[in-house]
C-alpha cells in the first residue's frame, strides 16, 4: 500500500460527560475510498468534525504534509431568508483563498453543477443540487482529500447513486482520497476500498468484502440490518 495520508490513534471525543467516540484507530492510504458506516447517532459525523478540526478531541489525528481537505456537510442549516446564491458561496472560498474566479467553471464541471443554478438563491435549490454545489465548493483549492457526509434525507436514492458516480469519476480524474459516511451498504460495497464501522467505538476496519460479515453487521446495527441490506429503505424515498 502507498504511504498513509491519515493516521488516527486512540481518538476520543467527549461532549461534557458524554463519551461520543471512544478509542478509534485507523490508517488511510492515498487515493483510497473509505466508507464510514454505523447506526444513527453512532458518532460518524463527529468523527469527520474531529478530522477537520471542527470539534475538540483527545488522541492523535495526523494528516500527512500537503493535505488539502474539502468537507461536504450532511446539510446546510440555512436561514430561509438567505439571499446568497451558489455562485456567492463558491466565491466566498475563492476570495478567502485568493484564487481566480475562473476556478468556478472548473469545479462546477467536475461536480456536474448546471451553470444556470449558479445565480439562484441557495435556499431555492433542490437538496441534490445543493449537495453538488457543496462538492464543487469542497473541490476549490486543489483539494486532495474529500470528506463527504451523506444526507439522511432530501436526496433520493437514484440521485444519491449519481453523486457517488461523480465522486468515483473524480477519483479517476485527479489525485483524491475519499472518505464518505454512508447509510446505504450497497453503495459501500460498490465504491469503498476500505470500510470503518463505528458505534461509539470502532467495530471493524478493513476491505468491505473481507470485513463486513453478518456478525459485524448485527453487532453494528442489530437485527434490522438484513432488511436494510436487501431492500430500499422506506425513509430514503422521494421527498
Amino acid at each position, binding site marked *: 500500500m502507498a504511504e498513509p495520508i491519515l493516521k488516527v490513534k486512540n481518538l476520543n471525543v467527549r461532549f*461534557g460527560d458524554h463519551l461520543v467516540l471512544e478509542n478509534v484507530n485507523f490508517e488511510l492510504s492515498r487515493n483510497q475510498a473509505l466508507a464510514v458506516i454505523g447506526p444513527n447517532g453512532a458518532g460518524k459525523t463527529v468523527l469527520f*468534525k474531529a478530522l*477537520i*478540526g*471542527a470539534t475538540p478531541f483527545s488522541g492523535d489525528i495526523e494528516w500527512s504534509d500537503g493535505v488539502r*481537505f*474539502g*468537507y461536504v*456537510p450532511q446539510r*446546510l*442549516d*440555512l*436561514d430561509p*431568508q*438567505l*439571499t*446568497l*446564491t451558489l*455562485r*456567492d*458561496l463558491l*466565491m*466566498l*472560498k475563492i*476570495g*478567502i*483563498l485568493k484564487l481566480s474566479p475562473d476556478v468556478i467553471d472548473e469545479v462546477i464541471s467536475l461536480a456536474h453543477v448546471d451553470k444556470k443554478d449558479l*445565480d*439562484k*438563491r441557495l435556499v431555492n435549490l433542490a437538496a441534490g443540487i445543493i449537495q453538488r454545489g457543496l462538492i464543487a*465548493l*469542497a473541490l476549490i*483549492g486543489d483539494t486532495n482529500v474529500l470528506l463527504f457526509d451523506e444526507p439522511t434525507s432530501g436526496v433520493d436514492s437514484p440521485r444519491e447513486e449519481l453523486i457517488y458516480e461523480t465522486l468515483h469519476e473524480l477519483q479517476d480524474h485527479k489525485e483524491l482520497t475519499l472518505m464518505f459516511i454512508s447509510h446505504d451498504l450497497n453503495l459501500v460495497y460498490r465504491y469503498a476500498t476500505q470500510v470503518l464501522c463505528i458505534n461509539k467505538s470502532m467495530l471493524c476496519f478493513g476491505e468491505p468484502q473481507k470485513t463486513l460479515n453478518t456478525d459485524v453487521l448485527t453487532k453494528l446495527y442489530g437485527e434490522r440490518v438484513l432488511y436494510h441490506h436487501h431492500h430500499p429503505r422506506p425513509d430514503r424515498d422521494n421527498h
Partner: protein
Amino acid sequence: MESVFYIIIITRVPIEITIKNMPTNLADILNIVLMISVAAVSGLVGSFALMKRMALASDAISHIALPGLGLAILLNINPLWGGLVALVLGAIIIWAIESQTKISTETVIGVVFSASLAIGSLITPSHELEEVLFGDIATPSVMEGLVGLIVTLVIGFTLLMIREKIVLSMVSQDLARTIGLKTSRINFIFLLLFSINVLLGLKFLGVLLMGALVIVPAAVAKNLATGLNADLWLSSFMAVLSVVVGFLVASATQLTLGPVIISVATIFFIISILIKLVLRR
C-alpha cells in the same frame, strides 16, 4: 434659517417640504454626514447579522448600553464612554454565550437585555431618560463628529475587507473551519464592530430604536435582493434612505427624529413585503 426642499415624484408634482433649523455651520453638517454614514454601516452590519438569525440579538444589543449611559450621566462623564464600556461588555457576553452553545442563546439574550433596560432606566436621571431611550439631534462638537465619522468609516471598511470570512462563518462554522478560519475570532470581531456602530447611532436613535436601523433595512434587502452584493448594497442604501427621508420629515414636522426614521424604515419594509408577494404570483 429656513430652507425649502423639493421632492419631485414620478408624477412630476413638486412637493414642498420646509425645513426649520437647516444646518449651516460645520458641526451641524458634520452631524448629518455622520448620521448618513452610521446608517450605511448599520445596513451592512444588519445584512450580515440576519444571515445567522441574529435578528433578536441585533435588535436588543443596543439596550445593553443603557446602564452604561445612565451611570456615566450620574457620574457626570461623557455618556459615550459609559455606553462604550457597556456595549463592549455586551459583545463579550453574547460572544461567550454563543461559544457555550449549551445554553439557549435567545433566552439569555432576552434576560440580559431586558434586565439592562430595567436597571438602566432606574439609574438614568429621569429628565435625561427620554433622550437616551429615543435619541435626540443635539449636535456633537466638530471634534466628536470627526472622530465618529472616522470610526464609522473604519468599521465599514473593515466589514467589507473581511466580508467573505464573516459570511462563511455565518453560513457554516464547519465549512469555515475546514478552510482554516478562526470562526470564534471572526464572530468576536463582528460583534465588536456591531457594538461600536450601535454606540455611534445611539445619539440619533436612542437605546430602544438603534437596533431597528440595523434590522429593518436589512430585512427589506432580504425580501428583495438575490445575491450577496445586492443584499449588502440594498440594505445599506435602504438604511441611508430611511435616515434621509426620516430627517426631512422630522425637520418638517418637528417630530422626534428617531421614531420618524424607524417608522419610515418600517414603511419601506411593508412595501418590500408587498413587492415580494406580487413578484411571487
